[in-house]
Structure formats: C-alpha cells, structure tokens
C-alpha cells in the first residue's frame, strides 16, 4: 500500500487519505439518519397527539347518562277507549308520562320554573322511545315499568365532569337545583353512565343525547359504492386506453395534461359542477348519495387514472413483448397479461382515491348533502349525509354535548378509513404476482 | 503487421508482436545456421560445424516457445479472421523454420564427415545456399510486412534453386563416374545439396502460408518447378 501509485504529492497514500475522511463521512451518515428519525418521530408525535386528543374528547360520546324512572303506562291517558288500536296508542302524550314519573320521584318540586327544569332533565326524545316501546309491546299499557331514559345533553355534560360546580351558577347552563337532583338520583343508583348504542344505530338529531352516526355511515357507504362503481371502471379503462392503445400525439398529450390538471382542481369546483349539471340540468334528487357519488367519482377519476397509468407503465415491457411474440392481439396482451400485473397498483391508486373521496366535504355541501337528515337512508336515492359532513355539522352545533360527538364521529371516520386501507392491502396481496 | 488499425485490447497487439518477433528471431537464427553450415562444408571446418549442430537446440526451443504462445493466444483471445490466420500461420511457419534448422544441422554433420575425404569442388552449392538464404530472408520480411508480392516472388524463385540443384546433381554425377574415390565426398555433397533444396521448399511453404495469412486464399497448385532430378538420372543412363 505504500507503493508510489497510491501516494499523493504530500507522501500520504490512498488508505491514509481515505482514513482521514472516514470519520467525517460516517458522521454525515449518522446525522442524516438522525434527521430522518427525528422527522418520523415528529410526524408520529403529531399524529399521536391528534389521535389522543380526538379519542380523549370523543370517548365520552360512547357513554351516555341515563336516568331510571318508574313509568306508569296509564291506560286512562294512553288508551282511554281500551281498544288497543295502534293508531290511538301512537297519539298518546308520552311526555306527560315522563313528567308524571318525575313528579312522583321528586314530589317536593312545586314551582313552575323548577318543574320545567326537572322535566328538562330527560331528553326530549324520550317520549318517542316510550311510544316505540308501546308500539312494539302494546300489552305494557296499564303497567309500571322501570326504564332507563337518556338525560339531556346538559346533564350528560355535567355528569361526565365537563362542567365544574365551582363555576358561578350564572355562567353555567346547569343550575344548583338540577345538580341537587342529579346527586339525589346518583345516590339511589337511578342515574348512570351507560354504553351509548344509540350513537351507532340512529341518525342525526337536534338533541345531542340521541344523535347518532349511523345515518352518516350508511350515507358514506352508499356514496362510496357509487363512486367506486363509476370511477374504477372508467378510470381503469381510460388508463388502459391511454397507455396501451392511444397513439402518442398532440391530442393524447393534451388529454394527459388535462387529467393532471383535473387532479389539481379544487374539489369545490366539482361540487359546483355537480350542482349545475346533475341537480339543475338532470334534476337528480338533491342530497342523495347517488349525486354525491357521481361528484366524488369525478374528483377521484384523475387520481385513479394517474395511478393506473403508473401501474401499467411499471409492467415490464418484456411481458408485452412475450405475449405479442406468441401472436396475442393487443387486446389479449392487455387483458391476459398486463392488467393482472397492473391490478395491485391500480387497486392501491383506487383505494387512495376512495379514501380521498371519503374525506371530501366541500363538494357535497354544494349538492345539499349538508342537510339535517334524521332518517337512515335505505337507498342511494334517499337524502343522506356523509361522515365528514356530519363532523362538520356537529362541530358547528351550539350544544356543549356535540363537542364530544364531533370527536367520536371523527373516530368512526378514521376507523372507516383503516378498514378501507386494510381491504386495500388484502386485495393487493391477493392480486400481487412475482415475475 | 498488415492491419493498420490496432486492437482495442492492447495486450493482444503486444502478444501478436511478440509472436512476430519470435518468428523473426527464428528466421534470423536459421539463416545464420545455414550460412555457418555451408561455410563449414566449404572451408572444411569441423569445429565450426560442431557449433552449428549444437545451435539447432536454440531453434527447437524457439519453436516450442512459438507453439506455446499460439496455444495461449487461441485459448485466451479466440482470434477471428485475419488474426486467426496470422496465429495459425505463425505456427506453420515455425514448423517450417524448425525443419529448416534441422536441414542446417544435418548439413553441419555432413561437414564434419566431408572434412575427412578429398575435397571436391562444388561451386554451385555455395550459390544455391546463398539463394536459399536470400529466400528465407525475403519470405520472413514478407511475413513481417504482410507483403504478398514479396512472398509470391520468393515462391517463384524456388524454381531457380531446383535448377541449380539439378545442375549440381549432374556435376557430382560426373565426378563420381570419373573417379570412384570421389563417391564418398560426392554422396555427402549430394545429400547436402538435397538439404539445401528442401530448405528452399520450406521457404516456398512459408511463402504460401504468408499468402494465405494475408489474403485468406491459397496460391495456385502449379508452382513453377525445375526439372526433377529423377528424370535426370534416367537421362544420364539413357
């Protein structure tokens, strides 16, 4: 190693010179790795902070304060004629039953103002629940049942400890007298936090204690199915045509540039387009997942086309040559060999597009999916809302109890996304082939 | 060599050059061997003849070296076309030169024997030897320069050697008929002349090889030849 060819003018040989720089090089490498680690940790930290804050906020929404009351389904009030006719039963004043039960529980409340407060402790929707019970089981009329009824949002918020007693009475919605009742109920075990099944099974409501996410979930599901059914075949076909069949000339260049541009167009513009074309011109139903899906299909189409083209480009040309070489037509080459190989990439692109569509809010506002809809949609033509819009709606609501519901809705949205991504991974693994 | 451009792989060129220099050295060596042998015959100098006999080992060693180099080139370079012909030709030329050297050696051996019998004047022998010497020199030049014209000229000159051999044959025949005591010397001289004539043939072989090497084609079969001595005998008797 000390031979002349390896020596520079100063007499040091290559090995020494390399040695001298080695420390610096390794240090640079270590620094680079540390930067990478730091950025990943930062990103994960933010994500964890976001998720914990949402989960911390939203966790409460999975529980709901319920009050147990002895409800007398008085025959005189509900079914004065004794006919048992469901139409008559439906007409009954169930709110009065709750009022009676509360008056029975707290006999010393007499003033009108206090009575109104006392009655306000139970959700306004509780009457509907009782009506439903009677409709399901008419024989309970005339009996007394111990029933857990949802408390109103204000009580719920207090019970979950989100409002402190130390705040001056004038600055909180729940007054001292109500706190007294709550404590009284708690002491006898008649007030409890129970798992909030209603949140997962019912639609939206003005009353936070009974508002549920299921309507939005179904709306999202319908919307995504429509989007997938439209965007995937269209996108794949377009990509295959552009990549495998279209001649490379100015026109296809133009189309390509436009597709790339479309991918960058703000989604609200697509919403306006949907409003103008689908609603105003074709008169499709407003607020329907059908239209939402069509608009979202337009938004995801460029993403799918671009991803599919990339996947097609990644298929080694040798496979095409092999197929053409044995005399397959171009169509056979594509359907037998190229598409199966490009499918994992296409699916990945599609799922990314769908995840994007799932989170899209703005364009749906334009076509009326922001409406307040209580019913669970049963078809893509029913008015519906979607998860992100639901989040937006609840985030905008005044009631304190909606705060935690907003977070819970976000959690559901994230769970939905994770499921979709899992599905994508499974599909990709199934379709993936080595070559 | 004949090719103006050089190989991309320089060491290949160097090996080919080395091959040429070996052939050149062999050529020079056999030339001096021939010269020395003939001088030993003419000057009746058995001592210098001994030197020539021993010198043949050098020629053989060179031939072995050429053979080894050719095998190496064939194995490692996979020569094609002109290179292939060049390398194969070198092997053939080396073989010819080795035979050439063998003839010089047998001449030298006979020079020792002939120095013990009465001198017989054989002026043609010297001329013949010079001619063959010139031929071998020219044909090796032709080889080294890739000059086919020169090679063809050498190839044609062999006829003269044959003619000289014929006349020498007749001359020696006459001496033997004149005086039977000359027979031993004349017989030796006849063999020496035959050796020289064979050397001429090797020179023409080399000329043919050079032609094949450069042009890739054979020279025509009808080489101009002098009279065959066997017919001379028939003539002499008849």
């Amino acid at each position: 190693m000390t031979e002349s060819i390896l020596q520079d003018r100063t007499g040091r040989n290559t090995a020494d010179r390399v040695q001298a720089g080695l420390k610096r090089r390794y240090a640079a490498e270590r620094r680079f790795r540390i930067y990478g680690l730091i950025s990943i940790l930062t990103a994960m930290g933010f994500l964890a902070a976001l998720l914990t804050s949402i989960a911390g906020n939203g966790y409460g929404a999975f529980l709901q304060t319920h009050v147990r009351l002895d409800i007398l389904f008085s025959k005189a009030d509900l079914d004065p004629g004794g006919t048992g006719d469901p139409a008559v039963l439906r007409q009954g004043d169930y709110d009065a039953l709750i009022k009676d039960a509360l008056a029975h529980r707290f006999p010393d409340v007499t003033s009108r103002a206090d009575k109104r407060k006392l009655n306000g402790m139970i959700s306004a929707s509780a009457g509907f629940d009782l009506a439903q019970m009677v409709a399901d089981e008419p024989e309970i009329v005339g009996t007394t049942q111990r029933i857990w009824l949802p408390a109103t949002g204000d009580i719920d918020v207090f019970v979950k400890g989100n409002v402190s007693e130390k705040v001056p009475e004038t600055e909180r919605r729940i007054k001292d007298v109500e706190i007294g009742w709550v404590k009284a109920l708690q002491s006898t075990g008649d007030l409890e936090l129970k798992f909030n099944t209603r949140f997962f099974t019912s639609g939206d409501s003005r009353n936070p204690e009974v508002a549920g996410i299921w309507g939005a979930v179904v709306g999202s599901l319908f919307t995504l199915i429509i989007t997938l059914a439209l965007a995937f075949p269209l996108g794949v076909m377009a990509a295959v045509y552009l990549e495998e069949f279209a001649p490379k000339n100015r026109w296809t260049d133009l189309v390509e540039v436009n597709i790339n541009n479309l991918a960058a167009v703000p989604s609200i513009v697509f919403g306006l387009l949907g409003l103008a074309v689908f609603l105003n011109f074709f008169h499709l139903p407003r607020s329907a997942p059908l239209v939402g899906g069509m608009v979202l299909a337009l938004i995801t189409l460029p993403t799918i086309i671009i991803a599919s083209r990339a996947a097609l480009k990644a298929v080694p040309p040798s496979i095409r040559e092999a197929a053409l070489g044995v005399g397959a037509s171009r169509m056979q080459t594509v359907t037998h060999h190229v598409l199966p190989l490009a499918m994992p990439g296409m699916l990945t692109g599609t799922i990314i597009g769908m995840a994007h569509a799932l989170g899209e809010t703005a364009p749906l506002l334009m076509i009326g999916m922001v409406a307040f809809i209580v019913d669970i949609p049963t078809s893509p033509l029913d008015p519906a809302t979607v998860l992100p819009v639901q989040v937006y709606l609840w985030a905008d609501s005044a009631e304190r109890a909606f705060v935690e519901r907003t977070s819970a809705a976000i959690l559901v949205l994230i769970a939905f996304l994770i499921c979709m991504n899992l599905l994508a991974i499974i599909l990709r693994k199934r379709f993936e082939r080595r070559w | 060599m004949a090719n103006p451009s050089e190989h991309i792989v320089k060491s290949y060129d160097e090996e080919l050059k080395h091959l040429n220099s070996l052939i050149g050295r062999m050529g020079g060596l056999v030339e001096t061997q021939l010269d020395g042998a003939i001088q030993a015959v003419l000057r009746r100098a058995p001592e210098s003849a001994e030197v020539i006999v021993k010198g043949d080992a050098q020629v053989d060693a060179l031939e072995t070296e050429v053979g080894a180099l050719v095998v190496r080139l064939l194995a490692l370079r996979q020569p094609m076309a002109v290179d292939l012909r060049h390398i194969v030709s070198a092997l053939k030329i080396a073989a010819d030169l080795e035979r050439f050297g063998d003839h010089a050696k047998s001449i030298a051996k006979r020079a020792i024997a002939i120095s013990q019998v009465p001198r017989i004047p054989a002026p043609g022998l010297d001329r013949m030897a010079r001619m063959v010497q010139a031929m071998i020199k020219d044909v090796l030049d032709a080889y080294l320069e890739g000059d086919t014209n020169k090679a063809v000229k050498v190839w044609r000159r062999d006829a003269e050697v044959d003619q000289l051999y014929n006349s020498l044959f007749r001359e020696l025949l006459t001496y033997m008929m004149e005086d039977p005591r000359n027979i031993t010397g004349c017989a030796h001289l006849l063999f020496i002349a035959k050796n020289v004539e064979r050397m001429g043939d090797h020179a023409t072989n080399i000329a043919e090889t050079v032609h094949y090497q450069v042009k890739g084609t054979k020279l025509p079969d009808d080489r101009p030849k002098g009279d065959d001595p066997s017919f001379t005998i028939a003539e002499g008797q008849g």
Partner: protein
Amino acid sequence: MTRHLELKTAVMDKKTEDRSEAALGNIPSTKISARNVNVFYGDKQALMDVNLDVNAREVTALIGPSGCGKSTFLRCLNRMNDVIDICRVSGEIVLDGRDIYDRSIDVVQLRALVGMVFQKPNPFPKSIFENVAYGPRIHGLANNGEELDEIVMSSLERAGLLNEVKDRLAEPGTGLSGGQQQRLCIARAIAVSPEVILMDEPCSALDPIATARIEELIDELRANFTIVIVTHSMQQAARVSQRTAFFHLGSLVEVGDTVDIFTNPSDKRTQDYITGRFG
C-alpha cells in the same frame, strides 16, 4: 382464422416442395427475402436498404456493434416494430412468397408463423404449463385438453426442458433458473409451431453452460425451423449459424457463409469488427 389456415396450408405445400428440392440438390431454399428495407424511428434512419435472404432450415446470425440495426431488422421480420408509434418500415419482406407488410397479412397471424425469443428470459408470471399452453390456446390450435397437453409436452420435450420440469408443471415459470426460463420461452415459441423463430440475443443473460444448452437446442431446432438469431457474441454466431450477416451503422455490410465470414471476411469493416479492432 380461415385466412390463417389458408396461409398455413400454402406454407405446408411450400414445405414439401422445399424438402424435395433440398433432397435433390441440397440447395438451400430462401425462406425470407428482404428487399430494400428501410426503417425510420421518427427522423432517424435505423436501417438503410437492407437486402438479405434467409434460407430455410438454417440458422442465420446477425452480428454487429450495438445500435447497428440488427435487432431492428430482426423485429421487422415479425412486425414487432408495429408497436412503436414512430417506427416506419419501407421496402418489402417476403416470407414464403408473401409480403408480410402487405395489407392482406394480419400481424397476429404473422406472429403465429414467426415466433420470437427475447434477450431477457420473459416467461409469463404463470405456471410452466400455462406459459407453453398460452400460444396454442389463443390461436385455438388444440381442440381439447388432451391435445393441449400433448402440444405442451412435446414443446417442452423439443425444448429439452421436459425432464427438468415434468414434476412441477404447475409451478410458476418465473421460479426456474435463467437458462431454464429461456428454454421455457423457446418451448412457448415452438408450441405454436411457427415456421421461423427469431432470437434476439437469447443467451446474453445466461452462463456458459446454459448458453451451450441453448446453442445445442438451436442446432437441433434447425432441422424443423428457420432460425434468425441476433447475437453480440461472435463466437456464438460462429458456433450456431450457417450464415452470418454483419450490420454496421444501419447497413448490411456483408453476408455469407459463417465459415467465410469468420476466417476470411471480404469487407474491412467486418474484419475489424470480428477481430476486435473497433467497438
């Protein structure tokens, strides 16, 4: 399909003719005849006035430095260049008396007659069986499963691969070694029973033993197929071919018997190329 059959029978007649001719005089018959072939990639001319005859049941090697147009010429023979938009071919290439660039010739039909083996072994990411069965299947060469099995087996046999893979026909073709993959590709090509097999540097990715096997295979296939092979290895061209064509800068410089080309080429450019004097 009917057209395909027509051509096929026409070709068969020609074949029997060829055979008798060969038996009589041992004169090689011309299988493919290229006349004044020019190829342009956009404005760039890749081939200039190439005139080349390929003899039936012979191996013709195309040699030359990279970018000399030998692969381009090879790809003209089964119109593989059609796939490239900017590629334009003029002149005529006659296969068994019919111009393959004529409108009456369908390119799919042509490729069934002129098979191709590529530089990099490119089996489909499917099973070994499916790889070979694909061609016969798309061309409808087998009437039932048994016939298809037979075609696959005999193709693998002829490609010298059957013994190595007969127990694992269902395994992916991509799991074979490089040389086996290339022989699988050859089996795939001959399964369609083409007239001509084009090989584009079939051994460039293989080790010498695998190469030797392919070369032996080429030599065997010569009895039934006309083979045109592009190779970068002059030794390979010398070993496998009967005729060699030397391309340089888009022109066909010299074509002749392989023995002549490699011992005494007539053109100086050929000489310089095969002796390693320019790159």
